[in-house]
C-alpha cells in the first residue's frame, strides 16, 4: 500500500514538474515573441521616420524643359541689373560686405540661398546697401576633386560676370545628396542655362590654374575666420565686423546683423 502511495506521489510530483516546465517554456516563448514584436515595430516606425526625413525635402536635380525655363527666369529676375565682378555681387561701393562661405552641394546653403539670401539680394544688394562676396568652403561635397571641379566651373562663369547666375542655378538644381550627380555633363548643362555665357570661353577658363588657386585661398580665409560649417556669413561694415553666423539664417536675422555693422 505504502509503496503504491509513494508511486502516486512520485507521479504527481513528476506531472507538476512537467506542467511547471511547460508553463515556463510557454512564458519564455510568449515574452520572446513580444520582445521581437516591439523591436520590429519600433525599428519599422524609425525607418519610416528616417525615410520621411531623408526624402521629404527638395529632391531636385537638373531641371529640364519648362521647369528649366522657369528656374532660369527666376534667377535672371533676381540678378538682372545687379553688378557682378568675379564672385562679388552688388555695388562695390556698398557700405556693408557680406562674405558667404558656401559649398555648392550643401543643402543648408541651398535652403539659405533660396530663402533669406534671396530676400537680402532683392532688398539690400539691389539697393546698393550690401555687397556679397562668395568664398568656397568644402563641407557637404564628399571628395576634394569634385569640390574643386564644381567651384572652378562657377568661377569660370565669374570670368564673364556670371558667377552668381551659375551658383544660383546650381543651388536651385542641386541633386540628391551623395548621389554623385555632379559630373561634367551636369556642370556643362548648368553653364548652358546661364544666359549670355560664352561656352567655349567658359570651357577654356575652367583650365585656368589661377581659378584653382582661388579655391585653396578661399579655404585658408575660411580657416582664418573660424568658419567650419556652411553657410557661414561674415558681415563687415562701417562699425566693424560682426561675429560670423552659420546656417539657414532668416532675413530678419540678416537685417539685424546688417544694422549692427552699418
Amino acid at each position, binding site marked *: 500500500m505504502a509503496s503504491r502511495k509513494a508511486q502516486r506521489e512520485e507521479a504527481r510530483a513528476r506531472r507538476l514538474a512537467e506542467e511547471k516546465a511547460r508553463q515556463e517554456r510557454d512564458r*519564455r516563448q510568449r515574452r520572446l515573441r513580444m520582445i521581437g514584436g516591439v523591436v520590429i515595430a519600433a525599428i519599422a516606425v524609425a525607418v519610416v521616420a528616417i525615410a520621411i526625413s531623408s526624402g521629404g525635402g527638395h529632391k531636385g536635380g537638373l531641371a529640364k524643359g519648362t521647369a528649366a525655363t522657369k528656374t532660369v527666369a527666376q534667377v535672371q529676375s533676381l540678378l538682372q541689373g545687379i553688378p557682378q565682378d568675379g564672385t562679388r555681387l552688388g555695388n562695390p561701393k556698398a557700405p556693408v560686405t557680406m562674405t558667404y562661405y558656401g559649398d555648392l552641394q550643401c543643402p543648408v546653403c541651398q535652403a539659405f540661398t533660396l530663402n533669406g539670401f534671396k530676400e537680402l539680394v532683392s532688398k539690400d544688394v539691389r539697393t546698393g546697401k550690401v555687397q556679397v562676396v562668395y568664398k568656397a568652403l568644402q563641407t557637404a561635397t564628399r571628395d576634394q576633386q569634385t569640390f574643386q571641379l564644381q567651384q572652378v566651373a562657377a568661377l569660370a562663369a565669374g570670368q564673364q560676370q556670371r558667377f552668381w547666375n551659375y551658383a544660383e542655378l546650381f543651388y536651385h538644381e542641386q541633386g540628391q545628396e551623395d548621389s554623385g550627380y555632379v559630373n561634367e555633363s551636369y556642370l556643362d548643362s548648368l553653364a548652358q542655362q546661364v544666359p549670355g555665357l560664352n561656352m567655349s570661353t567658359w570651357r577654356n577658363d575652367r583650365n585656368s590654374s589661377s581659378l584653382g588657386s582661388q579655391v585653396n585661398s578661399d579655404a585658408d580665409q575660411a580657416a582664418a575666420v573660424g568658419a567650419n*560649417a556652411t553657410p557661414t556669413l561674415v558681415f563687415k561694415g562701417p562699425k566693424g565686423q560682426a561675429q560670423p553666423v552659420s546656417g539657414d539664417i532668416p532675413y530678419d536675422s540678416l537685417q539685424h546683423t546688417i544694422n549692427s555693422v552699418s
Partner: protein
Amino acid sequence: MKATTTDQRLRIAIGVFCLIGIGIAGYLTYVHYAGLKVLCLSSGGCETVQASRYAKLGGIPVATLGLVGYILILGSLALRGETGRAVGFGLALFGFCFSMYLTYRELFTIHAICQWCVSSAVVMTIVVILTVVRWLLYADDVEPARARATPVQSR
C-alpha cells in the same frame, strides 16, 4: 522583494533621465518657437543643425517630437505590468534609432555638431538600455515569483 527593489531603482533612473531629456528637448522647442538663438559652445554648430532640413520631420521640429517622446516614456512608467515596460522600451528604441540617424546627419551631412542634440542622443541611449534591462529583469525575476504563487492544477 529583491526584484521589486531593483525595478523601483530602474524606474527612478529612467524617470530622472527622462526629466533630463525633457529639459533638453523642452529648451530646444522653446527657442525654436520663441525665435531665440540657441546657446551653443561651438561656433554656430547648433544654429546650423537647427536650421537644417533635418531639424524638422513632417513640418514638426524634431526637438518637439523628442519632448513628446520623453513625456510618453515617463508616462509609461505609470503603467502596470509587462505592457508598461514594453511600451517604454518600444518608445525608447524608436527614439534611440532616430537619435542615431540625426547624429549621423550632423556628422556626415550637415557637418556641424549641436551639443544639445548629442546630449539628448546620449540620454536616449541610456534610457533605452535602462528600459530593456527593466523588461528583461521582469522576465527573469518577477514573473517566476508570480508563477510560483499560482497553484498548479494537478491531474
